[in-house]
């Protein structure tokens, strides 16, 4: 850096005075305004969802929380969130089970094992994966991935068919498994990028101390990198979960759209709140739209609970450390 004469404080001058409408104050109000905007948006969304949902919920002839079907456009509207909420949580959970180990592996490889050039290039590719539109993932899942997943399902069914989750008698194809695999690929870049950042921030002192005590590289990662990164990993996973819960079009194209509560992963079927909104919105009538919005409200609540849980976990961990 070049020594600049203009910005260097001249000895003997007072500190800059605080002015009423100076840049300091304006910038402070701007940031406060930005912060408030988030709250306003959240409240506005919640209000919109509630106002639009109430008429439909009043017209509903079944219990909204326990009924499994979705027929809001009938003369006597019947719809319930049970199977949709179940499917949303199930597909997101499986997606995370598939994605998290791989994502953490990639992140550790990038931060601690890969040569720097490789890490930069690979990191770039991972970020690129995050920029692929979800409809492309959906089409890819529907057109290509469905074949290999169907074969895997058949194999699972033949060898592990005694497990209820791999039961059924085919033909296999668009299932919770397919949706979850596509979803896993979609949340992979988010979890990878965030945890890589966290791992790279591990204080060098901690790492060197571990190595100085005779730890191997894996032991060093286990004793210094992972504990240091734990809150970050949890935050990354929950951000990924948020994405998985809200994913719409890719799931609308890869799930088999059944309205059943079933733990079976490989039989055709599966559904999610967001996918059902995408499927039903175009042709929905007045009540139908309200019903879909009510389901959106449930998704909103689920996401809120997930995020709050995330905060609580991260906060607690921080105190223990």
């Amino acid at each position, binding site marked *: 850096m070049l020594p600049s004469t203009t910005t260097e404080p001249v000895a003997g001058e007072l500190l800059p005075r605080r002015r009423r409408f100076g840049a300091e104050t304006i910038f402070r109000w701007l940031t406060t305004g930005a912060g408030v905007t988030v709250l306003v948006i959240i409240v506005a969304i919640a209000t919109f969802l509630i106002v639009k949902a109430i008429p439909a919920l009043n017209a509903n002839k079944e219990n909204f929380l326990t009924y499994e079907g979705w027929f809001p456009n009938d003369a006597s509207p019947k719809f319930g969130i049970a199977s949709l909420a179940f499917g949303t949580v199930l597909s997101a959970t499986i997606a995370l089970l598939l994605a998290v180990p791989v994502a953490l592996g990639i992140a550790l490889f990038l931060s601690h094992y890969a040569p720097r050039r490789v890490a930069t290039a690979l990191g770039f590719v991972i970020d690129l994966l995050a920029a692929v539109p979800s409809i492309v993932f959906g089409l890819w899942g529907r057109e290509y991935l469905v*074949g290999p997943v169907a074969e895997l399902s058949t194999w699972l069914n033949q060898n592990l068919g005694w497990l209820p989750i791999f039961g059924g008698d085919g*033909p296999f194809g668009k299932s919770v498994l397919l949706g979850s695999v596509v979803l896993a690929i979609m949340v992979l870049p988010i979890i990878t990028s965030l945890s890589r950042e966290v791992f790279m921030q591990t204080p060098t002192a901690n790492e060197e101390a571990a190595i100085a005590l005779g730890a191997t590289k894996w032991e060093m990662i286990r004793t210094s990198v992972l504990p240091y990164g734990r809150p970050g990993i949890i935050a990354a996973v929950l951000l990924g979960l948020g994405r998985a819960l809200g994913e719409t079009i890719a799931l609308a*194209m890869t799930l088999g759209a059944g309205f059943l509560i079933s733990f079976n992963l490989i039989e055709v079927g599966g559904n999610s709140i967001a996918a059902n909104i*995408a*499927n*039903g919105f*175009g*042709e*929905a009538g007045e009540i*139908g739209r309200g019903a879909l919005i009510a389901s959106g409200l449930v998704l909103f609540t689920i996401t809120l609970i997930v995020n709050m849980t995330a905060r609580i976990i991260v906060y607690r961990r921080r105190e223990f450390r």
Partner: protein
Amino acid sequence: MKLQRLGMIAGVGLTATLALTACGSDNTPTPGASNSTAATKIECATGSLAVAGSSAQKNAMAEWIKNYTTACPGGRIEYNGNGSGAGIQGFTAKTADFAGSDSALKDTEQGPADARCATGKAVNLPMVTGPIAIVFKVEGVDNLSLKPATIAGIYSGKISKWNDPLIAADNAGVKLPETAIQSVHRSDSSGTTDNFTDYLTSAAKDAWTFGKAKEWKAPGGVGSKGSDGVAADVAKTSGSIGYVELSYAESAGLKIAKVYNASGAAVALTPEAAAATVASAKVTGTGDDLKLKIDYNTTEAKAYPLVLVTYEIVCTAGNTDKAPLIKSFLTYTSSKDGQAVLTKLGYAPLDETVRAKVAAVAAKIAA
């Protein structure tokens, strides 16, 4: 620096692609040019229209808009195939100048729609009719004929194997495998499902108990988003059966089943066979409202019974300054030339008597 160069290369690539696509779209209107010479009779109007609605008639609309704007460069029309429900909502809320819909206005929708039309009335004009193809993929089977009751049995899950005696009875002499049947239906609510279930309800009363609706109500089977999704699923899954508009069946290269009509003949899907069913449709609307009732149990021996009908929902008056263009465009679509375009897109033209009535209403559209 490196990044910049990369960006430049990408830019060049993008430009090349764009140039190529531009060439591509330049080439397509050439056959359309002959159309526009035939359509010089179009009485042009100027202005712009926003139309929204049924995705089932999207291809027809796209072709009509192309032909119309070739003949009348002063008229700009945009069709948003976002679904009949959204179309009707947009029409009522005045964001759409008219709506395409897979089903006529319901009683609950008629009131608000009439209110929108101020001095006029909202009417249903049948405009695009087309056959629904039953597509299948079964190893070793090239020809398949199905009775409505058999289709209903398959789709309600009662028939689960291809060598079921009921299917065998419809296909004397055809060797059917013992594969399981994977029935594919639409996962999104759609007019195609509405028409398909309407057909099953009236042609196979005893076997189909789920009524008619835009949403799929029968248990089992696999749902797929959009007709393209259904076609893709059928193309991939051995032992599968699906229902799609003819154009999707053709573009996916799927085998199409013959369907038995009420006269007892198994009829292959051709535009003529579908037109024969459309010809037997009755107008059930009153006045200018031309709501159609398809006779799915037509006894005409050559008729392919499984057809769908879609409407344009439009104000007879109260269209303010949009009136001339709406009138001009719908007059073209309901003309003989306009309807003739439909055949090559996999739709079926309206029957002449119905077409004349639609054209008469279109000619009356006022401000």
